[in-house]
């Protein structure tokens, strides 16, 4: 049993060493090597929720972007970029298990809210696009964010925080997500994901949360209660 994938930045290889399968990965110099003590029927390499590296410290993704002023009642759809993490899954007996996660995107953490009541987030800075920008699918994905101001005050938005346990990730020509941000007041906003696949990204990625055996209790999104700036 053998498998090999290589591009200028990523090399993945599975070799059979006298019945023992060796997995090797090199992602821009970040190397991983291990032996697999079991057989499998398929290997899947897919984008996963970008909150796993270098270790799982949070399940929140925060995207920071240039300030956008939204009037009461107004709605605006913008495009943002988000970091892509790539998961390697092994399938056997109808079960899919995660083997490895790696990424070419830079990793930075941040705090949303106060140290006592806030949350640690995987932080990413994106530009704000009104048209679909070109993305490197190995490095960054495209988020379509529909912002709606249901409050009574004009609100400035410069960041969005998402709970990855409610994330729906799709891939095709690019990696994509569709999200909504409803502003309830200048201090409170609600972010959710859409389960509908974008036209050019028909394939649903495997939820790493589920593959790791966690049960998802939150599909209702995240309430940003520490402001949108």
């Amino acid at each position, binding site marked *: 049993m053998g498998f090999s994938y290589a591009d200028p930045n990523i090399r993945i290889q599975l070799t059979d060493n006298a019945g023992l399968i060796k997995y090797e990965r090199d992602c821009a110099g970040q190397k991983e090597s291990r032996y697999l003590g079991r057989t499998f029927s398929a290997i899947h390499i897919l984008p996963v929720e970008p909150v796993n590296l*270098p*270790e799982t*410290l*949070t399940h929140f993704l925060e995207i*920071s972007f240039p300030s956008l002023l939204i009037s009461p009642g107004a709605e605006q759809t913008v495009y943002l970029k988000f970091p892509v993490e790539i998961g390697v899954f092994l399938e056997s007996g109808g079960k899919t298990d995660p083997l490895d996660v790696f990424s070419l995107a830079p*990793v*930075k*953490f*941040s*705090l*949303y809210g106060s*140290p*006592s009541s*806030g*949350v*640690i987030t995987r*932080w990413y800075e994106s530009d704000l696009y009104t048209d679909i920008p070109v993305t490197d699918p190995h490095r960054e994905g495209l988020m379509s964010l529909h912002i709606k101001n249901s409050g009574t005050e004009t609100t400035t938005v410069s960041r969005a925080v998402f709970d990855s346990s409610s994330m729906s990730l799709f891939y095709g020509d690019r990696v994509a997500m569709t999200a909504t941000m409803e502003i309830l007041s200048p201090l409170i906003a609600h972010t959710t994901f859409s389960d509908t696949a974008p036209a050019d990204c028909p394939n649903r990625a495997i939820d790493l949360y589920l593959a790791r055996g966690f049960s998802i*209790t939150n599909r209702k999104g995240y309430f940003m209660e520490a402001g949108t700036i």
Partner: protein
Amino acid sequence: MNILGLFNLTVPSATDVESTVTSDNDIFASISPREILIFIVGIIAAYILGLVISHHIRVRMSHRLKKDQLDILTGIIRAVLIIVVIGISLPGLLDLSVTIILIGLVAIIAIIGVSSQKVISNMVAGLALLYESPFATGDFISTGGVSGTVVSVRLFSVRIRTTDGVYVHIPNDQIYSTTVSNNHANVARRYVYSVGIRYQDDVKKAEGIIEKILETYTFVLKNPAPAVFVSDITADSVVLMIRAWFPSNWKLTQDDISLSIAILPRIKDALEAAGIEMPYAQRVIWFANQPTIPIDTASKQR
């Protein structure tokens, strides 16, 4: 009316009490194997019921309570169930009146209370810790001169593993009556470091180098933003203070040493690579009467 009359109990005099209490042999002679079996089955049923209730509590409350709190709560529920079953079935089994059981219970509680004040004090403190939950298993805490990771929180004591691997057992009343610092109570924690540079070095350049390191270091939080500034000008050096926030649940913030090892060598190497050096301690000494030091010019010329 005496106090027993308040509860309408039928113990008119001490002699009646004596007559009610038969000898041990008589008590056990009157117990049939069937009654013993029912008693044992009752206790087993209470134990199983306790396990079932505990399981349901764990499933339903695991996202609200910490593991230690769940352990103590389920333990109390199981103990209460067994005590209730014993309390209900024992009087009938031993053919004792409720009054005798109550008197016996009060006597036992009084004896335990007098002889085990410390134990009870620890238990009460344990319940208070359970309610307030200032820390949980896995947290790194400092209390009473001891710092380490909490291994378990029990009804009477807390067990801590220090960074050098020593197991420390601390009674609950001691912890409850002293200051406890918990490194993990908040999701983020600020660390402060001081770095001294020489007087002739460019302060702005040094600050820029350190800020760049903090910016590119994954675990230094973007918000709150790290800060680097001159905090002191000492006799030997210009002291730069570094303030940076890190996630509390990151493994290197388990103790202060691990983080220092990860951060400080990077800063030192980057500063030295830019020609900025750590200063040596130095003193300029002025003599009141300038001494005459003979200079051997002949040997210099040779």
